[in-house]
């Protein structure tokens, strides 16, 4: 029977020998970075919530229950109770204006009628009949009576999707253009580099806004516009890597021992660039979400009835004096996600390339 050769685990001086691959080493370093791990956990939670949104026991994000408009957030009180409270305090305020500090019989009757309605009224929502006033709106409602928690979760779907798809597209475009420029060199390289340089100097938001103005404000356009202005950095990085690796010594060394082009590309060029691309992608997603939110805030991004975190914040700003929860909950949800992605991205960067000049 063949015995498998075991790699020596200690050297002659009894010092342990550790073999290290890039990814194992990186994972080890990443694990030590607590912030990055928290970030990773939170991002996973968000991802799970977004993906399972349709099966979660939350209320519909677009079904309007007008009577439930502007309800403050509450875990303990149902919508019905809040409605009654509000009605009562409004009536008392009116009564005081007229010189009384108690409700008269007429008002009490109205209150009683409302109470009955609250207890018995049932509506048809999503094919089911529900006692709608028994709902608890944990994050409150918006002017159209829609549950803010549900809107945040659905908004998260939109924002995260835009972040992912946008990043993915721009990374693909970037890799393609960068590889083209780097590998072919010459005129192609020159033209592509010129384009990148000119575009780099322009404020990309302006370009995106112009494009939205030109071509209309729908989601497809949004993706397109954002992706068009975001591929620049990836292209530069990929081009740089390919050029330096094309001529580098270890490619020559690989060639000199007979490695084929294919092998060179996959065993050598790709792993080197992959690290940078992973880090870049992770850091790009929050920045895409920011860009989309920025546009949505201005009204140029996601349009009704879709919601994204940016549009939710925008809606929230309007009534923020009276209904601060409309601003704060979406803002906090978005900011936590952005923080988590940023910590994760920073952690990945430190883990994959601790000597990197970008180490902050």
């Amino acid at each position, binding site marked *: 029977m063949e015995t498998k050769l075991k790699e020596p685990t200690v050297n*002659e*001086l009894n*010092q342990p020998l550790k073999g290290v691959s890039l990814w194992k080493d990186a994972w080890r370093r990443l694990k030590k970075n607590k912030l990055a791990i928290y970030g990773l956990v939170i991002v996973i939670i968000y991802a799970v919530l977004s993906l399972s949104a349709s099966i979660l026991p939350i209320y519909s994000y677009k079904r309007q229950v007008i009577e439930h408009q502007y309800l403050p957030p509450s875990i303990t009180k149902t919508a019905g109770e809040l409605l009654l409270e509000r009605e009562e305090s409004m009536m008392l305020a009116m009564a005081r204006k007229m010189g009384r500090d108690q409700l008269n019989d007429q008002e009490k009757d109205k209150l009683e009628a409302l109470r009955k309605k609250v207890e018995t009224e049932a509506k048809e929502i999503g094919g089911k009949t529900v006692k709608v006033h028994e709902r608890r709106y944990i994050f409150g409602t918006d002017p159209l009576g829609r549950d803010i928690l549900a809107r945040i979760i659905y908004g998260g779907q939109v924002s995260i999707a835009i972040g992912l798809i946008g990043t993915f597209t721009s990374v693909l475009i970037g890799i393609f253009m960068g590889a083209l420029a780097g590998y072919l060199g010459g005129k192609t390289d020159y033209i592509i580099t010129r384009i990148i340089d000119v575009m780099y100097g322009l404020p990309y938001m302006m370009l995106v806004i112009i494009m939205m103005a030109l071509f209309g404000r729908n989601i497809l356009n949004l993706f397109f516009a954002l992706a068009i202005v975001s591929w620049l950095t990836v292209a530069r990085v990929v081009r740089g890597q390919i050029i330096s690796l094309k001529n580098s010594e270890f490619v020559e060394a690989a060639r000199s021992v007979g490695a084929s082009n294919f092998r060179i590309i996959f065993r050598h060029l790709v792993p080197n660039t992959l690290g940078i691309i992973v880090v870049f992608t992770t850091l790009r997603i929050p920045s895409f979400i920011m860009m989309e939110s920025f546009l949505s805030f201005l009204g140029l991004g996601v349009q009704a009835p879709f919601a994204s975190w940016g549009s939710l914040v925008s809606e929230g700003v309007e009534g923020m004096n009276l209904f601060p929860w409309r601003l704060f909950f979406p803002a906090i949800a978005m900011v936590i996600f952005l923080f988590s992605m940023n910590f994760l991205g920073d952690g990945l960067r430190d883990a994959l390339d601790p000597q990197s000049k970008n180490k902050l």
Partner: protein
Amino acid sequence: MMNGDVILKVENLKTYFNTDDGIVKAVDGVSFELHKGETLGIVGESACGKSVSNLSVMKLIPSPPGKIMAGKALLAGENIFDMTSNEVRRFRGNRISMIFQDPMTSLNPFLRISTQMVETIRLHQGMDKKDAKEKAVEMLELVGIPNPGKRVDDYPHQFSGGMRQRVMIAMALSCNPEILIADEPTSALDVTIQAQILEIIKDLSVKLGTAVIMITHDLGVVAGMCDNICVMYAGKIVEKAPVDELFHNPQHPYTKGLIKSVPRLDQPQRGRLFSIEGQPPNVIDLPECCPFHPRCKQAMDICRKKYPPVTAIGEKCCVSCCLFKEES
């Protein structure tokens, strides 16, 4: 040429570095003496501790990871490790100067040469700007920079590698220090330039009476220049001897291996070039033993268990090897 008085005495220096992977014992008990006007060579492979020992003397070890754990460095009787920061700064560039390996990165690319040289001169010798600049030009001329009056106002990137190293030497010697530490000054230069730089160092050390510590991995460099040589391995000195003794009569197996590794043009070449088998050890968590034993053809049982003591051989040599313990 040596002159008798000991101007620098390093006793049992230990410098350790605290890293994520463990404690690196970069220098683990190094002792040597430097006499006035002497040229001392410190030879060894990469990471044997030769640079770190001298950086420790200059107190230039970055302090969060590194720490001087033990030992003394006596500069004319005073222990450098007991000095205050101000006192240390007073002798740096003034009584002891150091030049480094890579002249491309050792000069500040954003400041003119004149600025960099004048600041040292004014700091230690209190001259005014005009006089200091004149001195700088003088030094540049001494190291062989053509047209020094004009070139002193240039920026480092306007000089070639060899020229920059000359500038470094000029700057280091401008305050007439007693000791010049040269840390692999020629390793980053072409071979032809190497010879020129070494010539300059040698000439100036004679002219100005400066003692030189020459750190290098290249035996050829020390052969031509040094009076005495220390051979280092894995953070310790394994052999000390005057240059002729060392080359004609090496005692330690490592030294013998080193000398044998240098290919010789005056002998017929037979078969493969000689190299010492194996790799230098990882100095993290090094157990107590002779660090060279895995590569030593004459290793004995005791070499695996204890560190060999230092044995003097004659007046001027000593060696750290278990072979000698037995004999004496």
